């Protein structure tokens, strides 16, 4: 559906994108993830024909964005970071304008009514966009992208600046749209990607550092083998014991208060250390006050990806240093 090959974009001597390539299949919902300034918006602007690249090609459904812009643009509905709304128009007038602008051929009235119902703005149709709340404006922005039923939808940070309830609403909407469209969604909010996308493209400093199914990342998170342990016992000795237990790769003392010490431990892949840990401690008469799994969140994984150039470490969050 979308083919991006060797995209490079520089602003003067600063490279916003260097040699970015990826392909997106029809029906995929792809999360475009990266820290601020990583090149997300630049990529999206190039995909939609707002900006042009220094080199490389973008093809949307076979149409080159530079050679056949009209055809390529017809395939895309785009919601930029700031929704492009004419605030002096009513919602209905505005959507009518977008309809004419995109030279749609669908029956106008029905089409606009349908879109208004999909994004649930039917109740504000006759109000001036200027007077709408931010959540509604965002939805009008999404409505604008839907005009003409383009097969590809591109959203640039669609939930930024919304309140939590609105965020959930917009996410649900995106999920619904993802069933019938190819969607590219840029964001730096990880749970959002987790909730909506099938696949992740992670970009950092103008490079694609990872291109993986979302499940793979969530699996890494689920399979966390880090624990936080609280034991009533002398810190140094407990630590020595912990390091002696087979299957524990790493143990670190955290704090000691009122005879209670906390530790973080990390087990080797494929072994469950919780049982041996319990018995070893019980044998020495040091009661376990707490043992909980520490979840590696997507944030950690993301930071690692960005730092390690895209390789998911075999052992999540395994730091090289040992105390």
């Amino acid at each position, binding site marked *: 559906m979308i083919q991006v090959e060797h995209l490079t974009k520089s602003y003067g001597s600063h490279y916003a994108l260097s040699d970015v390539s990826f392909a997106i299949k029809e029906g995929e919902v792809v999360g475009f993830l990266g820290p601020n300034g990583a090149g997300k918006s630049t990529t999206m*602007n190039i995909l939609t*024909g707002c900006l*042009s690249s220094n080199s490389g090609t973008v093809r949307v459904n076979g149409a080159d964005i530079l050679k056949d812009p009209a055809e390529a643009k017809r395939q895309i509905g785009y919601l930029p970071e700031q929704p*492009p709304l*004419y605030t002096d128009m009513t919602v209905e007038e505005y959507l009518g304008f977008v309809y004419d602008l995109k030279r749609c051929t669908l029956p106008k009235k029905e089409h606009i009514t349908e879109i208004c119902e999909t994004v649930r703005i039917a109740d504000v149709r006759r109000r001036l966009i200027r007077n709408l709340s931010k959540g509604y404006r965002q939805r009008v922005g999404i409505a*604008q992208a839907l005009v003409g039923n383009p097969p590809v939808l591109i959203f640039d940070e669609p939930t930024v600046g919304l309140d939590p309830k609105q965020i959930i609403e917009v996410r649900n909407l995106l999920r619904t749209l993802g069933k019938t469209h190819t969607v590219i969604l840029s964001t730096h909010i990880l749970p959002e990607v987790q909730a909506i996308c099938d696949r992740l493209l992670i970009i950092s400093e103008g490079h694609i550092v990872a291109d993986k199914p979302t499940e793979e990342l969530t699996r890494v998170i689920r399979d966390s083998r880090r624990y936080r342990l609280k034991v009533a016992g002398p810190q140094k000795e407990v630590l020595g014991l912990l390091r002696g237990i087979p299957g524990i790769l790493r143990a670190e003392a955290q704090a000691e208060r009122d005879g209670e010490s906390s530790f973080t431990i990390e087990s080797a892949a494929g072994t469950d250390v919780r049982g041996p840990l319990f018995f070893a401690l019980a044998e020495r008469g040091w009661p376990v006050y707490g043992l909980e799994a520490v979840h590696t969140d997507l944030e950690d994984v993301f930071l690692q990806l960005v730092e390690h150039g895209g390789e998911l470490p075999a052992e999540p969050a395994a730091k090289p240093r040992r105390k």
Partner: protein
Amino acid sequence: MLAIYKREMRAYFTTPIGYVFAAIFLAFSAAVFTYTTLYALSSDTTDYFTIMLFSFIILLPLLTMKTLSEERKMKTEQLLLTSPVSLTGMVCAKFLAAFTVFFGCMLLTSLNFIILYTHSEPNTAIILGNLAALILVGMAFLSIGLFVSSLTESQLAASVITVAILLVLLVIGFAGNLIGAPWLRFLLSGLSVFSRFQNFTNGVFDIAALVYYVSLTAVFLFLTVRVYDRRRFA
């Protein structure tokens, strides 16, 4: 393109700008007309047209100042740039909308002349020639305004810069008269909008001037398209 044109026209008349422009334009032209012809008991319209020409320096930037700068500031240009409309189509639609408002006002002010005809026998050819010339000059000025508006996000900057450019274009002919070197004088009066206009006030329909105004318009519309093109490649 038609969609942009329609939206633009709508924007002129749902915001005060269209009304303000029309009101100032009509009131000013009526006042000037009254003073230069009725009060002066004259059917000579030279002064009227000359004063109108100079008033365009202030008036016409009002029409174009926000055309593109506002789009850029509100980020609505992204909608236009990602829609299947060519840059040329977009710029032309905007230009035509501004021109339509201006042309409408010109038509309305032409009603002034009816009074003149009831009292005397003015030279119809001169009046028509002058009206045509004013419209041509207006066209060129609007395209310059549009160009400046594409350069900045600020409406105020757009209008001030446009006024400055128009002023220069009008007066370089006078500056030429103060300069001794004949080639420079020739060059400056060749560039001056005003010296071209003078032929019309004298009742001569100057084809060279027609070509000059139309190409001035075309050049600035082309430059506006280039501004967008260049920004994409920047």
